[in-house]
């Protein structure tokens, strides 16, 4: 479904990603794990069209999308839930969710989608008319995920969904991600919380200093000596 093929990318003259390749098949939950600064976020931004690859390409359902503007990538059905929530602070929760359904294919059915999404996040139903900035960090992360789902994407990407959240909220966030995945959504997730992510994923990639050093089934990565030493501290 998604294929990143031999991509070099970065900002200005700074190269972050070197010869990065990865694949996500329909219905899979794939994760990229790695340390802070390894290039995980840049990988997602390259898929989203926020960063244009210097060499190599990004293909979605066989078509190259690496030259598209971010809004065109969203229209194709790829939605990124960004690191740090990035809500619209002076809008209500309801308006934030409606903004998620701005994509052409999602706008017409947004009332139905809203009901479905609120079924998954009952707490947000009680908060619909509150300003997004008045919510707790965990609630804001739930709004960010719900807003991403409002786009009815074919591929949903999460950038560090557990960052800065209390351990109990982290559990809730991963519960939600598992539910989203169980609904058949294709998911690409980037995390520093390696243990939780590998538990939730089918397959994983390990990114170090902008290069893919390992890829395997998630179960196998949990057993891998290098992963255990470098990321799980076992």
């Amino acid at each position: 479904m998604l294929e990143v093929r031999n991509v070099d990318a970065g900002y200005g003259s700074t190269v972050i990603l070197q010869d990065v390749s990865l694949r996500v098949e329909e219905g899979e939950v794939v994760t990229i794990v790695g340390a802070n600064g390894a290039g995980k976020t840049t990988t997602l931004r390259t898929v989203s069209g926020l960063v244009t690859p210097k060499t190599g390409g990004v293909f979605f359902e066989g078509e190259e999308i690496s030259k598209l503007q971010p809004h065109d990538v969203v229209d194709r059905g790829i939605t990124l839930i960004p690191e740090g929530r990035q809500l619209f602070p002076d809008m209500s929760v309801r308006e934030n969710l409606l903004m998620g359904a701005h994509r052409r294919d999602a706008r017409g059915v947004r009332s139905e989608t809203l009901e479905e999404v609120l079924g998954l996040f009952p707490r947000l139903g009680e908060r619909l008319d509150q300003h997004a900035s008045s919510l707790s960090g965990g609630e804001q992360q739930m709004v960010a995920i719900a807003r991403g789902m409002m786009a009815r994407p074919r591929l949903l990407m999460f950038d560090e969904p557990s960052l800065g959240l209390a351990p109990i909220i982290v559990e809730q966030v991963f519960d939600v991600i598992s539910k989203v995945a169980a609904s058949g959504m294709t998911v690409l997730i980037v995390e520093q919380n390696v243990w939780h992510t590998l538990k939730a994923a089918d397959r994983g990639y390990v990114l170090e200093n902008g290069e893919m050093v390992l890829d395997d089934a998630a179960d196998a990565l949990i057993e891998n000596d290098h992963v255990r030493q470098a990321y799980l501290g076992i």
Partner: protein
Amino acid sequence: MQTFLQIIANGLMLGGLFAIIAVGLTLIFGIVKVVNFAHGEFLMVGMYLTYLLTTGIGVHPYATAAAVVPILFVFGAVTQRLLIQPLMHARDEHIQIFATVGLSTALMNLALLIFGADIANTPNHGLRSQIHLGPVRILEGQLWIFLAAILLVTGLQLFLARTNTGRAIRATAQNRAAARLMGINDRFIYVLTFGIGAACVGFGSALIAPLYPTSPTIGTYFVLIAFVIVVLGGLGSIPGAFFGALIIGLVDALSGFYIGSDLREAVVFGIFLVILILKPSGLFGTRVSQSHVSP
């Protein structure tokens, strides 16, 4: 008492006129985050268009809005697309401001070249006749401007609050990076918003031209006052621009009568400095969005 009421009425009417000019300026500033120093010259262009259409084909000045509003919309949109947007990634955002200053001077001199320095009087079709409202007398055209200002401010607020496009505009202003991730074409939003801001002042031109003689420098006077209003009301706030305009209109009228008409502007700009020092966010100001950094 009679005199005082008359001064208040004059102030409110003047405030309505200021509001109609300031609304477009605050919209462009609040959404596109560009201070448009050519805003007064947009007004000047609109007033000349109204003048040409009324004298050329003899229509009522208000009817020219049907042409002036769309022309100014396109003018604003093209300004954003061809002048501001190429500078969006400039190393220093202030370059955009200098570009609008340049545009302002160019338009002023272009008008001087075409129309000369003489004033152009738009036929007023009876809009300068006085009407009695209780104890006060005002010009018919002033009352229309005041009502049009209320209509424009209400309409814009509803558009921004209730429509999909309006929500997309607000989303882009609040968090541009996130708006792009929602599938919003941020460049289109900026072009559209600049167009709407210019269209607002185009709407104002058709109303103002019958009451004020048009000249190449007419915009300079109004736009300076409009900047004071936008700062007083809170940068980017449309209700702020409206109430700020009424306050400045009242201050202008009251100080003109009680202090001396030569000192009106000194009082207005004195207030401007006091606001900047005491409450830089203005009356209706929210925090200035921090998200104008391109992702």
